[in-house]
């Protein structure tokens, strides 16, 4: 028997953080969006132990300011794509700039400098990844996905999918289905 599980990434990560912080007896406050405030001064030894504990989960401590802001941009985009796309009435550039309190051009330049890719490109990749996830896990049509993700039409989503991955959404679905058959 096979079942699919749906993750709430934010909750999973917050739970892991809380668990590890409590294990190390660190007084803290979790501020959401991957931000943790320490309510005590952390010794180097403790900080290292914390970083090591988190690395098991693929979680990384980010310390320098630029990378922190880039991580916030990524988190905001992921949250935007996965949870709020249909509700956001403004352009994503305006949304990012208002949410993070910096001008969009500043955010865009910083993002490209650190990640070698543009914010626009990152948003497209996230949307396409979410589309793949929905195609696999839910009984939902591409038209419904296009609407959910705020595309003007299903053709627009379909074209962007093909341009990003080199294959069509239906080929993707076919490949994933065949893979499952071969592995079962």
């Amino acid at each position, binding site marked *: 028997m096979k079942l699919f599980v749906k993750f709430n*990434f934010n909750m999973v990560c917050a739970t892991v953080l809380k668990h590890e912080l409590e294990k190390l007896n660190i007084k803290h406050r979790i501020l959401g969006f991957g931000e943790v405030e320490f309510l005590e001064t952390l010794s180097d030894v403790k900080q290292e132990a914390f970083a090591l504990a988190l*690395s098991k989960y*693929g979680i*990384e401590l980010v310390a320098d300011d630029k990378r922190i802001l880039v991580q916030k941009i*990524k988190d905001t985009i992921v949250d935007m794509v996965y949870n709020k796309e249909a509700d956001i009435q403004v352009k994503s550039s305006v949304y990012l700039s208002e949410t993070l309190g910096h001008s969009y051009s500043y955010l865009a330049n910083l993002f490209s400098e650190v*990640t*070698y*890719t543009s914010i626009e490109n*990152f948003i497209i*990749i996230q949307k396409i*990844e979410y589309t*793949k*996830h929905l195609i*696999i896990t839910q009984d939902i049509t591409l038209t419904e996905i296009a609407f959910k993700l705020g595309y003007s039409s299903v053709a627009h989503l379909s074209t962007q999918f093909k341009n990003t*991955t*080199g*294959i069509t959404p239906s*080929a*993707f679905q*076919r*490949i*994933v289905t*065949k*893979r499952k058959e*071969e592995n079962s």
Partner: protein
Amino acid sequence: MTHNYTHIILADDDEDDRLFFTDAFDELKMQTKVSTFNDGVYLMEYLNQQDAIMPHLLFLDLNMPRKSGIECLKEIKANSKFKNITIAIYSTSASEEDIEDTFVKGANIYIKKPSDFKKLKKVLSNVVTRNWQYETSGLNRDNFLLRL
């Protein structure tokens, strides 16, 4: 954890193709370390060594003597030791069915070998960047399918 270098391996029996490939990466200056193997047997011998450094990205030519790219792909997919390797098929040309078949068998990327050097550089840089995004942005590698 973050790593500084992307480790890349190419298995291809064509000497010119191997040379093109390493030259392209030399010129790209993308913090990559590239090794090449002359066929599938040499590749699998290396990968199966206990202390082998696992590549992040593995490029497989399909038509190789002794052991083909598809045979390597099957062996790699059957061993969980290799589950973190992104596999790119690097081939001259193939039918639509053959391409889809490599994806079904577990390849992540299918690249038709570009004819000119400039194009090759662009394609390879695209692959490394996209792979890096999968490694650093928590994307699900099972859904990593890319055709170039």
